[in-house]
């Protein structure tokens, strides 16, 4: 088991390196840098001026070297001019003596996430605040989504073809067919619009960042939860119906086990192995929902800064966001693998 986790972690780190490198290349493409130079300098820069600005700020180096520096695996660049020394790890231009004091490595491994050009602030602090907001949102999404999806799936799957099954399956198909930007719009229209007049909830969640209440927070949570719920419920149902037709369920039935004990003692554990993996692999998709819902409800979390960073060519922030989301995805995958092994005795004890 230990060896297994070790190997999985190794693959995970390799994946993370590959992915961040791809993101690094994509954000550091020439047109992006040119745009950066112009926003940081001035918009009517000549091509030479752009080039020299880039060279002066360390962007002229080969991509691999830049990636190494950003990661903190290579020493940060320095450049000596008449006024003193400037560099990746040095704020502004400083005399040589003081510059020598500065750290040689300053990448994300050292905790230096860089500086956001959009928010004029440290990337690390932006991320931590916004991630907190989103974390709270996600917590409630999971609290609502996972239990209800599992219950719907199990109820529908335990008697295939029954009334309950058909009604619940219809509901879950409907929710999987409704992406967040559709369900969000419909929910807002029904529950907040003055035209319909129900006005049960608030159409924006801006105030929820400081003071989340049922009124301003329920709709965004529901919007994300609905889309994922249908999918997980359908997976659970499929897994449950398969288990319910298995021979060993018939064995249990013909042993005289009562129906609810068949479901609870015999079927449930076997039926939950597959959906567990599905739930964990939902995280990359949940991020989608987060971005849409945060935009739709104007809730300033992780998804919102992603849109802002991407829209404003904020390279350092975008890189940090990628790192965080890739790590979140990979960690959930790791948990899913381990959980799968744990839940399934056929694999655990071999």
């Amino acid at each position, binding site marked *: 088991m230990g060896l297994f986790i070790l190997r999985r972690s190794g693959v995970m780190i390799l994946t993370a390196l590959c992915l961040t490198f791809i993101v690094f290349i994509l954000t550091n493409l020439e047109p992006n840098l040119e745009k950066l130079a112009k926003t940081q300098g001035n918009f009517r820069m000549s091509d030479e001026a752009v080039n020299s600005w880039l060279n002066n700020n360390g962007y002229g180096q080969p991509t691999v070297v830049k990636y190494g520096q950003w990661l903190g695996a290579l020493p940060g660049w320095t450049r000596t001019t008449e006024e003193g020394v400037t560099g990746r790890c040095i704020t502004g231009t400083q005399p040589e003596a003081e510059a020598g004091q500065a750290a040689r490595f300053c990448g994300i491994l050292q905790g230096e996430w860089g500086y956001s050009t959009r928010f004029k602030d440290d990337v690390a602090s932006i991320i931590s605040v916004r991630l907190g907001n989103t974390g709270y949102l996600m917590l409630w999404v999971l609290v609502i989504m996972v239990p209800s999806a599992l219950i719907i799936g199990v109820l529908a799957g335990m008697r295939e073809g029954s009334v309950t099954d058909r009604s619940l399956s219809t509901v879950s198909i409907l929710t999987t067919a409704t992406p967040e930007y559709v369900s969000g719009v419909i929910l807002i229209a029904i529950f907040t619009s003055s035209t319909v007049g129900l006005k049960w909830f608030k159409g924006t969640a801006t105030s929820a960042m400081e003071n989340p209440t049922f009124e301003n927070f329920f709709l965004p949570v529901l919007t994300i939860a609905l889309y994922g719920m249908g999918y997980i419920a359908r997976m659970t149902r499929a897994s449950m119906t398969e288990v319910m037709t298995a021979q060993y369920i018939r064995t249990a039935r013909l042993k005289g086990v009562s129906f609810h004990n068949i479901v609870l003692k015999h079927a449930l554990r076997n039926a939950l192995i597959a959906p567990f993996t599905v739930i964990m692999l939902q995280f*990359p998709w949940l991020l989608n929902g987060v971005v849409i819902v945060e935009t739709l409800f104007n809730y300033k979390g992780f998804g919102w800064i992603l849109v802002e960073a991407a829209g404003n060519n904020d390279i350092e922030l975008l890189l940090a966001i990628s790192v965080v989301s890739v790590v979140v995805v990979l960690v959930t995958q790791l948990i899913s693998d381990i959980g799968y092994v744990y839940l399934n005795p056929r694999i655990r004890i071999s």
Partner: protein
Amino acid sequence: MDPLSWTGQIAFLNPVLALGLGLLGLSVLAWIGLSSLLPENRAITPSGAGLSLPTGPRELSGLVVRLAFLLTAAVIAAYLVLGLALGTGAGIIGAIAQRLLPVWIALVLLFALSIRFKQRLGLYGKLFDSPIGMIGFGLVMFWVFTGIFGAFDLIITHDPLAQLSGLKNKVPGTPLPRPEDGDFQWYLLGGDNLARDVFSRMVKGAWEVVKIAPLATLFAFMAGITLGLPAGYFGGRIDTILSFLANLILAFPVILLFYLLVTPEIVQTGLPQYMAAVLFAFPLIFFTVLINARFRTQPQQNRLWLSVVLIPLVWGYFSLINQTGSKINFLPQSLDLFNIPGGILVVFVSVVFVNSPTVFRIVRGLTMDIKTRDYVAAAQTRGERPWYIMLWEVLPNARGPLIVDFCLRIGYTTILLGTLGFFGLGLPPESPDWGSTINEGRKLLAIYLHPALPPAFALLSLVLGLNLLADGLREESMKD
């Protein structure tokens, strides 16, 4: 001109519909309640009791549900038929029903022909045995026909880009203030915040989806199949490398990928074109190998078939990736069949790129299963080459799950396209696609509902249709 009401002269149907819907809702609730409270029928009935009238409250409630459903369906059909006959006389519904006349004709023809010949149509024919599948197929084909006829300017009432003054954010059924000759007199579903006709934009939006989603899914399948087959069949190192790459893409949050990939800056670098050059090469590889494997023993036929299939494909491929004034530009103008605007191309490429790893995983899994069958062993023992086995022995027998997934995946692609539109990525800002329209409409949602809801429901019903279609297909293909 007077503003149109929703139902006009057929308003008398409204209470009937309300009754039907109410009855349906109540009976469904009763049905669910009764069937979970009352014990399930024992599987054994005494002799003679075949198919007689339902007796218990359980069966009775089921019957009521069916009747209420039929009533509701009949009322809705009445709306459509009367609307068709009365046109604007029957209000907005009538007018829309009449505008959609070509779609109705096409649907009726398609269903009539399909049901008539369903015995001979294989899996497609069997679809018409499953009510779920038929409803799904109906919904999907409704939007497909709407898209196609819309593209021929048959259904739309106004130019989807034209802004008519005085119609900004106007409610459905508002008449044109200064109609010219030949103009349609109303904005059927109202005007949006730029005073454009919501109905026409919705119809045009269907074309945006119908033209991109199936094709993009098809390319994703080509790539996924071409890579998934060898990964599953050979296993070993090829599998490890390809699976790692697939997982790499899958671990990438889609939205982030879109934000990184679908930007004007990226289009400038030519990256989408290079990706297109790679992704669109898969069909070429696929067909070359397919034909070559089949006719390996008959060189003459092999050459014939290869040239018949490959020459148009290669030409199409070059035309597709070649674009004047971009990084890939080598084909003389006269030979370049068509040009795809950079924005569309990058949308297309990224959707294919995001979908293919999942297809890869499915194909790989199916291949690993099927390769243990005896007929594969039989092919091996008569000395068939691996690619023949993969393409002619394994792939045809994996078609069931792949077709089902294809339908689901078109739905997913539709959602992705909507997401792109919603964030204004790739597509031109005035594009009538549903995602962009929803995005524009949502800003004023608290006051004006009508610009955002039609595209939202359109997208919802199309994806729902695809899901139902996939369910119906899955059910029917399992019956074999």
